[in-house]
């Protein structure tokens, strides 16, 4: 289904959704930093900035409770978290790189054991993507086979138009539902041209070739030169739309507290450290190698997809200037 949505009607849509009790999550300023977060009203939305962190936290929060416990004498009572209480959510203004990573994460959270914390939020969330009209020199979505106008992962996709407003296209029933529930706000396409999409200045990687090299070069002198300067801060993993490693920790006392699932990162020394003192990934290059391997080989081996959508956040915010796009490009030319 194709429709036109004016800027004012987009705001009206969000305000209606909020009035209907839906949680509306969109890019907004948070103490000076653009982040995806719940809106109090449509006025808070910031459409022209790529949020600092990706949209994955809508489904996989930085920290979330998975149960609470309380002790009475020798007995312990557990309180479950009921995912059916998670709110119906509309996630708006999601960049193609962020939206594309979400279905990639479905694979790990739904294979074998089902993580209902992630999956129930997925079921209850409608994703409204937004085409990018500007890129910076860290963007490389085109290099991993996506594009600034790729609707992958979006239920409804908005493309900014020359004369203002958005061309709307639906890709799922959820997207159609959103339009059907608010038909007065959507009008027929008015024939105006889309704003020219952003043009990231990167060539497309041959990811098959990259994977083949990774298949054969777990041991290679290149790993040291690639990653010896990595300081293991974990920023890349925390900002990444596809990194999904987590920790499970108890917060509280022996008497009462909660168990939580918190983001973690394979760049951290402690990530694989055994209680005995042994650490299979004892050096930073081994940890960075795992990051590249997981993204471009291991996940592909298991689920047939790679764990990178080219958002460029890990490049923009790496404190020591590690550039994953340059690394992968170099590997693809080996």
């Amino acid at each position, binding site marked *: 289904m194709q429709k036109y949505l004016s800027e004012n009607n987009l705001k009206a849509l969000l305000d209606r959704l909020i009035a209907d009790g839906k949680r509306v999550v969109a890019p907004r300023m948070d103490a000076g930093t653009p982040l995806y977060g719940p809106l109090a009203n449509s006025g808070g939305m910031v459409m022209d900035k790529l949020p600092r962190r990706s949209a994955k936290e809508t489904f996989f929060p930085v920290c979330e409770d*998975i*149960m609470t416990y309380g*002790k009475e004498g*020798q007995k312990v009572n557990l*309180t479950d978290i009921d995912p059916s209480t998670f709110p119906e959510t509309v996630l708006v203004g999601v960049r193609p790189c962020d939206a594309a990573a979400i279905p990639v994460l479905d694979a790990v959270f739904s294979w074998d054991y089902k993580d209902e914390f992630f999956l129930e939020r997925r079921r209850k969330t409608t994703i409204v993507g937004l085409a990018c009209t500007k890129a910076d020199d860290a963007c490389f979505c085109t290099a991993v086979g996506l594009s600034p106008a790729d609707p992958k992962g979006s239920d409804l996709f908005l493309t900014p138009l020359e004369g203002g407003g958005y061309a709307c296209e639906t890709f799922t029933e959820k997207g159609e539902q959103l339009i059907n529930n608010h038909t007065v706000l959507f009008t027929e396409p008015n024939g105006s041209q889309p704003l020219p999409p952003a043009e990231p200045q990167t060539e497309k990687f041959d990811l098959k070739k990259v994977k083949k090299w990774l298949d054969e070069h777990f041991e290679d002198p290149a790993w040291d030169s690639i990653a010896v300067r990595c300081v293991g801060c974990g920023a890349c993993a925390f900002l990444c739309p596809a990194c999904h490693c987590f920790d499970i920790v108890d917060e509280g006392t022996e008497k009462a507290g909660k168990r939580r699932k918190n983001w973690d990162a394979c760049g951290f020394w402690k990530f694989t450290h055994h209680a005995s003192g042994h650490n299979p990934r004892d050096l930073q290059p081994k940890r960075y190698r795992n990051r590249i391997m997981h993204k471009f080989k291991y996940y592909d081996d298991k689920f047939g997809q790679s764990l990178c959508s080219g958002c460029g956040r890990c490049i923009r915010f790496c404190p020591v200037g590690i550039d994953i796009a340059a690394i992968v490009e170099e590997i693809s030319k080996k």
Partner: protein
Amino acid sequence: MCDHNKNIYLPHLATVEEVIDETPDVRTLRLVFQDEAIRDGFAFRAGQFAEYSAFGAGESTFCIASSPTRKGSIECCFRAVGRVTEALRRLEPGDTMGVRGPYGNSFPIEEFFGRNLVFVAGGIALPPLRTLIWNCLDWRDKFGDITIVYGARTEADLVYKRELQEWQERGDVRLVKTVDPGGNGMAWDGKVGFVPTILEETAPSEENTIALVCGPPIMIKFTLPVLEKLGFTDEQVYTTLENRMKCGLGKCGRCNVGNVYVCKDGPVFTAKQVKAMPAEF
């Protein structure tokens, strides 16, 4: 209301029935599930592991150390070396802890029927084999000769001392126990030497035999060549890998060795499978 089908991270509650000190820092806990349906329905196979929690400290990963043939309770065995294991060590009989599992694959015990078995273990790595040892001893007529080569740094560091005695005395098991040089007291009646050396000296026949090896990385490293020398192929040798884990469910992303997830594809592997992995364990 707790829904274990919906919340895969939710543990079952279990009561500590018995606390046994195996060594000065290794402890066994015998646990009984508080929910009767879980107690009766908890089915596992030798080699599987679980996530054990001390509420307020968190979860730790250990094998289920008791045999699936022994119903009613399960056992775990751990060395108190970290926050969670120290908290588990503070638990007393009657206290409540959490158990999630069973997880992972298991020893293909049916494939071992009719064959001789050689167990090779070092130190705290006996519990992952002890589940299988008792499983086999409870089904004794299904197996040929059973040899157990077990060693630790010192006499004090040998776990399951009562059971070593029992295995030694029962007549249908060949137990070879050893301690590292200098680890023996004056009354020590076993061997003195490192496990790989004593295994070579014991020289079990590879014919129709399966070897099951578990120990610290250094012991495994020197044991595999000995088995090779004795004629064992890599398909005849099994081990269980231990890696730091959190979820145990193939999601949290830390236990992988290359593209192999120890929590899902393991923890039981043949030596052939281990040798195919990148050297990152």
